[in-house]
Each structure stands twice: as C-alpha cells, then as structure tokens.
C-alpha cells in the first residue's frame, strides 16, 4: 500500500467485518465434538450455526465477538481488537466477550437436549422470519440417475439430465463456501451413482463444510465404500425405506430386490460411526403397516425415524397415492405413538396448512416452507432451484450472479409466501404456517405463481 494511502487509512472510519464465513471445529481429542460456522452478512450482522443445525442470529457487535471466538483469540487479544474498533471501554468489551463465549460454548456443548429458547432464555425471533443473503443448506443433486424407479418420485427431470464434471462440482462447493453456506447434502437421483462422490465429500469437508448424503442406501451395503465416504468426512446419512414389507417397498420403488439391498445398507450404516436416520414417504401404499415399519426400523438399531407425505412434483403428481393433509393427523398420532414406544426420535418434514394439520399442536415442531430461504438445491447441470422438488431454475450457480438467483422473482415469491391462500390472510397461525407447501397447494387448487 502506498505511504499516502496508508496514512489516509489511519483516519478512515472502521467498518464492520467483511462478508464471509468463519469456521471452528473442536480438536479431535476434545471430549465433546462440535462445529461452528459464522456467516458475516453484508451489513455486519451474523448467523452462527452450531453443527449446521442450531442457528443463532447475532447483531454486529456480537458477530465481531463471535468471529474472534471462532478464531481462538485469547480474551486480552479480543478485548484489544474490540476496543480498537469500537467506542467501548475495555472492561465492557471483556465482560461482553467472556459472556458471549460462555453462552456460545454452553449452547454448542448442550447438544440437542437443551433448547436455547426454552432453557437459556436467549432472545427469540419468530420462526422462519430471518432475513438472509443465502440459505443455510444447499442440496447438491449430483445426478438424476437412480437404480430405483419410484412411481412417486418427485424428480421432475429426465434421468439423462446433463451433469457437471467433478471440477465444476468443486467450483460449486467453493461458491457455496464463499456465500457462507455451511451445510451441503449430496442427493439426486442417487448420488452414490456418481463415481466422484467420495472425492466431492472430501473436498467439501476440507473446505470446512458439513456434509450429508440422502440415498436409497443400496450402495452403502458395501462396507468398504461406506468407509471411504466416512474417511472423507461425511457427517450424516439419510436412507429411504418405504416399508418393513419387502413387497411393499419394492413396489413403491419400482425395483424387485431393492428392499434387501437397502436394508443391508441400513445395517451397514448403523454399525458405522455416523449420524444416520431413515426416511419414509407416507402414502396409501404403505401407511397401513406404518407401525410395523417403525418397529422394523427400531429393530435395525436406527436412532431416528423421519417421514413426510407425498411431494406433489415430478411423477408424484399423477401417482394417486397421496394422503390429503386433512387425513394426516390420525396417521401421525399412530406414528408418534409407535416411535415413542420404540424409543425412536421422530422427525416430520412436510410443511402443511395448520388448519388441516397443525404440527406445532401435535408437537412435531414448526414446519413451514423454507424453499429459497433456508435451503435450496443445485441441479446436476448447476442450475439452482428453490428446493429439491420445485423444478423452476432461478439461474446457474456457476454462471449467474448469486444476487440474481437469490433475488429471483420466484425466490422472493416463496420467501414472501405469496402462495398463501386468501383464507390464510387473517389466520393467527399465518406466521408459523405460511400457507403450507406451495406444491401441495398448486396440486389441490391453490395459487400457481405466474412467474
């Protein structure tokens, strides 16, 4: 820097931290493992993600403290830096730094059992209300090829859809990191059909991202292959299992013999050191035996049972096995009862209209559409779509500016929840519900975006 510029810089006002991402991972020998990602937004505010699951929203000052915490600064170093950049006494800066560090560590170490809203009396904001510059999670649909042929599959693209090369996918991963997205899931189609999956997982982990895999599990019965993925750093795995009944599962995935391979895959993963869960799509084809399916999942040693209802996209639009939202409550009561009986953790995914199915009332958690907000999806050719099931391209992540993708009219339409129906406008549950799933609504006579 030229001398004059340097002198000039001494007199320029300090500015908030530049946008970017900070990453912290506990040392391998730490008694409790966790990862922290801090995304600094353009205005200096921050989003701190703990294990890519717990999200804290920070004001500018807290963001600056958190960045120093994640960089491992000692208290005296942090206090010096804060007092240099802010009009604050050292005593205040020190008290705030230590208090914030204690709080963040407390939340990170508490794990899932301690909810910060409930127990730590952290200030709260309304669910699904955060204003972001990029999602928390990006799903990478590496390919639309798949060994299964589910008649209810939501993929709305041909199987020979163009695919990016390994190098291009690495660029996508780099781009996600630059945007401050801390969490990737590899999906498809069937992501394990890509021979470079292990390489991409390793690359993403080396960059600092948390990675997951959504799969039919058939390739994972190969323990050596699974070990490769885990050594590459894969953090979590979700395997789709439609039924305990081999015939039902095979019918639902359209391939005889698939059930055996999937169950073998589940058994292999359960025995490995990785967070895993299964997921089941509740349809008229498998719901009668759902208790038995849950019992079966538990018998395999799976800790968490996930389920959702039919996603009205791709082939699923015409499959005819969907269950209306208004009919789901008694089914979910059965699911709750069965998972509780087998000591399984239950995760329900589907956003519904709360007047039809109220997930908060049923203690299933807040479920609202998070497409183009908390999560998005990159298609095999690099196009970004609002979520894995909403097949309208907002732009290409490698060739289009991110702002154009994020601020695309459809993305804004979804974030603004313009797909809500008239009956929602004065509904007290509007904030949490947000009108349910736009794809379900479109299929059942609700509004369709004219974008």
């Amino acid at each position, binding site marked *: 820097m030229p001398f004059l510029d340097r002198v000039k810089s001494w007199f320029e006002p300090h500015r908030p931290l530049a946008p970017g991402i900070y990453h912290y991972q506990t040392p391998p020998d730490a008694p409790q493992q966790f990862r922290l990602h801090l995304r600094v937004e353009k205005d200096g505010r921050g989003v701190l993600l703990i294990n890519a699951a717990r999200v804290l929203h920070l004001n500018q000052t807290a963001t600056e403290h958190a960045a120093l915490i994640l960089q491992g600064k000692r208290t005296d170093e942090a206090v010096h830096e804060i007092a240099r950049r802010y009009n604050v006494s050292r005593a205040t800066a020190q008290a705030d730094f230590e208090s914030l560090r204690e709080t963040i560590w407390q939340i990170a170490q508490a794990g899932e059992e301690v909810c910060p809203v*409930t127990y730590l009396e952290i200030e*709260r904001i309304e669910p699904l209300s955060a204003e972001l510059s990029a999602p928390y999670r990006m799903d990478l649909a590496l390919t639309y090829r798949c060994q299964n042929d589910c008649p209810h599959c939501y993929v709305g693209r041909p199987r020979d859809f163009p695919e990016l090369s390994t190098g291009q996918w690495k660029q996508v991963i780099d781009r996600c990191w630059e945007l401050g997205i801390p969490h990737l899931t590899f999906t498809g189609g069937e992501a394990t059909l890509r021979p470079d999956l292990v390489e991409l997982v390793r690359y993403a982990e080396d960059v600092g991202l948390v990675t997951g895999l959504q799969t039919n599990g058939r390739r994972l019965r190969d323990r050596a292959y699974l070990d490769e993925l885990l050594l590459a750093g894969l953090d979590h795995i979700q395997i789709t299992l439609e039924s305990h009944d081999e015939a039902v599962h095979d019918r639902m995935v359209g391939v005889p013999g698939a059930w055996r391979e999937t169950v073998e895959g589940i058994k292999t993963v359960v025995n490995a050191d990785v967070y895993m869960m299964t997921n089941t799509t509740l349809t008229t084809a498998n719901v009668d035996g759902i208790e038995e399916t849950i019992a079966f999942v538990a018998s395999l040693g799976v800790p968490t049972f996930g389920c959702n209802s039919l996603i009205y996209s791709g082939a699923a639009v015409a499959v005819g096995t969907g269950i209306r939202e208004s009919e789901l409550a008694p089914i979910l009561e059965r699911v709750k009862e069965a998972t509780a009986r087998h000591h399984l953790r239950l995760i329900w995914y589907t956003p519904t209209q709360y007047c039809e199915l109220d997930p908060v009332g049923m203690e299933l958690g807040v479920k609202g559409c998070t497409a183009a907000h908390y999560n998005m999806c990159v298609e095999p050719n690099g196009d970004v779509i609002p979520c894995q099931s909403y097949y309208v391209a907002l732009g290409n992540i490698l060739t289009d500016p991110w702002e154009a993708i994020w601020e695309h009219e459809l993305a804004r339409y979804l974030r603004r929840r313009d797909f809500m129906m008239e009956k929602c406008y004065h509904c007290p549950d509007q904030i949490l519900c947000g009108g349910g799933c736009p794809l379900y609504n479109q299929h059942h006579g609700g509004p369709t975006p004219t974008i």
Partner: protein
Amino acid sequence: MCKRSALIGTTILIVLALVAPAVQAQDYRFNLKENRVHLYINHDGTVRIVYDLTFACDPGAHPIDVVDVGLPNNTYRLGEIRASIAGVPLTDLSDSPYVKPGVAVELGSHAIGPGQTDTLHIEAIVRDLIYQDSQDAEYASLEFAPTWFDSDFVHGPTRLEVNFHFPPGVTAEEPRYHKQEFTAAGFEDDRVVYTWIKEDASGSQKYVYGASFPKKYLAEGVVQKVPAFNLNLEALCSSPLCWFLLFGGGWAFLAIMGSWSQKRRKMQYLPPSLAVEGTGVKRGLTAVEAAVLLEAPLNKVLTMILFGLVKKGIITVESEKPLRVRAVDPLPQGIRLWPYEHRFLQAIGDNGELVEGKLREMAVDLIGDVNKKLTGFNRKETREYYKDIAARAWQQVEAAGTPELLGQRWGEGLEWTMLDEDWEGHTRRVFHDRPVVVPSWWWGYRPWADQVGPAPAPAPRPTPSGAGVPVTLPTLPGANFANTVVSGIERAANRVVSNIESFTDRVTQTTNPPPKPSSSSSRSGGYSCACACACAGCACACAGGGR
C-alpha cells in the same frame, strides 16, 4: 445467567418513553380501571399519543380533580395538547409539577367524585421518539411505557391496552415486536396496528412495549441516534480543563487531536445480542402441566390431579387420615384421562392408599413430559401466559352472579385457580360474603363429611348430577364454604404423600440430575442436519427426504 439476562435485556436500543409516577395529594384513592393508549407514528417522525384513562374514585376518597400524565420526553407543546372528559374539553393544562416530563390536567367541575367512574381523554404530540434499531440498519425502533401512578393512590387490576399505529405504507409483515409479543395485529385506516393487552395489569407498574419497522416510511433525518456522549459546555468551561485546552502546549493539543481522531474512527458499540428462532407461548397445557411449569410444590400438583379425578367422578376419597381413595371400576366410557391421571390411578394400592413409589414415577414422567412439550417454546412467556389464565379463572369465578353459578365456575376452574400461589387467601376473599351452591362433585371428596366436619346449613335445591340423577345440593355461606374447601385441599395436600420434602428430593434427583455431557461422537457434526431438528421452535429446513 443474571449477567446474560442483563446483557440481552439491553440489546434493543432503548428509546424509552420515560414517564414518572403521577397524581398528588394524600387521600386520593382510586382504581385505574383502564389505561388505553394509541400511538400514531407519523411520517414526519412525530408520534401522536392518545390516552383514555378510566378512573374509579374510591368511596370516601378525595375527588380526582387533577390528573398528572407522564409523557415520554419534553418535546411536547402545551398548546397542542387536547384533553376532555365525557366529551367536554378541558382547557386548564400545565406542565406537571410532579411528573417530569408530563402534563397536569385540571378536571375542574368535572372532577371524578367518590364512587364515580369517568374516562379522561388526552392527546399529545411528541417528537424525537423514534430511534435507530440496533439490530437492523434499515429499521427504526420505538419503545414506550404507558403512564402509571403512585401505588399509594392506585389499587386493583387495570386493563392495559397499548396500540402502535405504524406509519402509512408499512405492510403487515414488516414490523417486528420487541420483547413482548403483541396480543393482536390488524389494520385501522390502512395502517398496520399492533395491540398489546394485559387484562390484569397494575396501575402502579411500568410496562414497556416496543416494535421496529422500516425507516423508509419516515421522512429523512427524523430517526434519532443514540448520542455517544453529551457535551456539557458550561461544565467544561468552568473546569481547569478548559484553561488547559486554551493555553496548553501544542504537543498536548496534537495528542488529544490524535486520540480524538482515532476515537472518531471507531464504530458505535451496541451490547452484543443473540437471538434464536423460536416460538413464544406453549398453549394447550393442562392446569396440572402448567403447575409443573410454574414449579408448584409437588404435593400441590398431586392434589390437583386428585381433585381432577374426583371432579370426573373417577375416584372418591374414603378417608383422610390415612388418605384412602377408591377408583370406580371399570372406568366409565367416554371419559378422557390424561396420561398422568392414568398413572395416578395405577398408584392406588389395594387398601386404597397411594403407593409413593408409583406416584414418584408418575411425577418424574410428568415433569419430563412437560419439559418435552416446552422444547422450542419460551418458558418465561409461557409461564406468564398460564399465570394470566389463572388470574382470568379467578375473574370468572368472581363475576358469577348467582350461588349456583359461583359454585359451578369455582368447580370448573379449580385446577386453574390452584395455580395461584395465594389460592387459600384468594378463596377466602372471594367467598367470604357470598353464598354458594356446593358443586356435586365436591361430595366425592367428603363422603365422610358427616363424621368429621360440621354439617353444612343446607338450603336444598334439586340439581341434576353429571349422570342425570337428581341430587340435593346445599347452599353454604361463602365463608363456611371457603373454610371447607381450603382446609379440605390443605389436608389432602399434606397427606397425599407422607413426607413431601423427601418425595420432592427423590423426584428432583431424577429430573434434575447433575449435569452430564451429552453423548459425543468421535465424528464431528454428529447430528448436523438442519432438518434433523424436531424442536418445536427451531425452524427446520424442509427435508430433502421424501423420495
């Protein structure tokens, strides 16, 4: 924890509408029945504050002839203030000598006499009330505390209603409330309105409400910034520092300038704040679950369950000492029992006594269930919500107009009113001078009353029981009734377990064990899926599962 709470408590830029206690004189005594205030936030940054204060002057007290109303700051102009009572304009207005800043309104011939109730209407325009939001550079923030009165003068509950009318153009989804979630939101004259209502507020307490909204709806330059410091020139010039600055050496001047320059470069420091997405109040808890949440003593919780089952006609109490109960067998069809009620029934031994080990297991599970239900919900807000329900349950009882209705409402709301920490005292106050028809279920608790207690003085009247069989219910003088139920419930609470301290210790050893680290994995991010969160308050990204 205290430090953290304090920290968070100051994270939102304070733009308090500071008001001070009002009203003078020693024998004023009144109930502020309603304090309704509307704040109209205007494009030019002014805020029109419109109060409707309903006073009920106590019989025998000094007439309310002047009212001092606090205002947020001294930017108001006396000439702009409008006041009226019963539609009659009041013109004798002055700066209050007691409330600063504030205005004194002389009621003159419209003074509110002893035993009378009337509403004072007052409007004022204040400026410099809207500040920069600490969380969002694009937002402006307003916090406001409605006027309150000295506790020497005001008593009883106040219905407090605060309305923020956001500037024209603000859309429904744009405003953000601060700590206290609004009670209702709507539109009025094309403006978004947030309304906070507290039915049982205290007229002598300060309540703060706040909200933020995009500052683009305000004229440029009207949003206030928190001053970094206040320069008091008068004080400065009278100090030696002034002379030093004037006559001091050049090096000192340069050093100060350098320091000043560095300080100028620095950014404004706001207290760090963390926020988590979460839901507010967990609705739908039963009174028993609410009692657990409110950390009521466990014998009280068990007594609530006992009386809930008595009310449902599922058990009768056969003796008090030792406490022996009898459950109907088989259970009647169509009666819904909560899981803890089932467990309570299972804790009844063969001789009718309660088996403490089983009660303890029930209590442990009940506490666990409540904690699980609260996951993701704000515990503090939920506690306030259920305290409010308890207060409203009492109000419903108090409002009953006939002995029959009084007994009926008391019975229906018993578990909710029992959330009141002063349940016994409240019961005695409510019933001390009112006759009451004893609800039929109460005799499920006192089938042995003839042997152990004074016979009530009945005024028999036929009343259908739950099963449709006519029974004769007595009307008791309220004081007798209060004594009966208070002592009955106290006895039950004292005997439901043999040693409540030991019982509680053994329960809490299980529910509040010494902290243990959660299960750890040698892999990082062991549960690192944003979807892998069923916590009610955490916004889960819609999964990608589902194929």
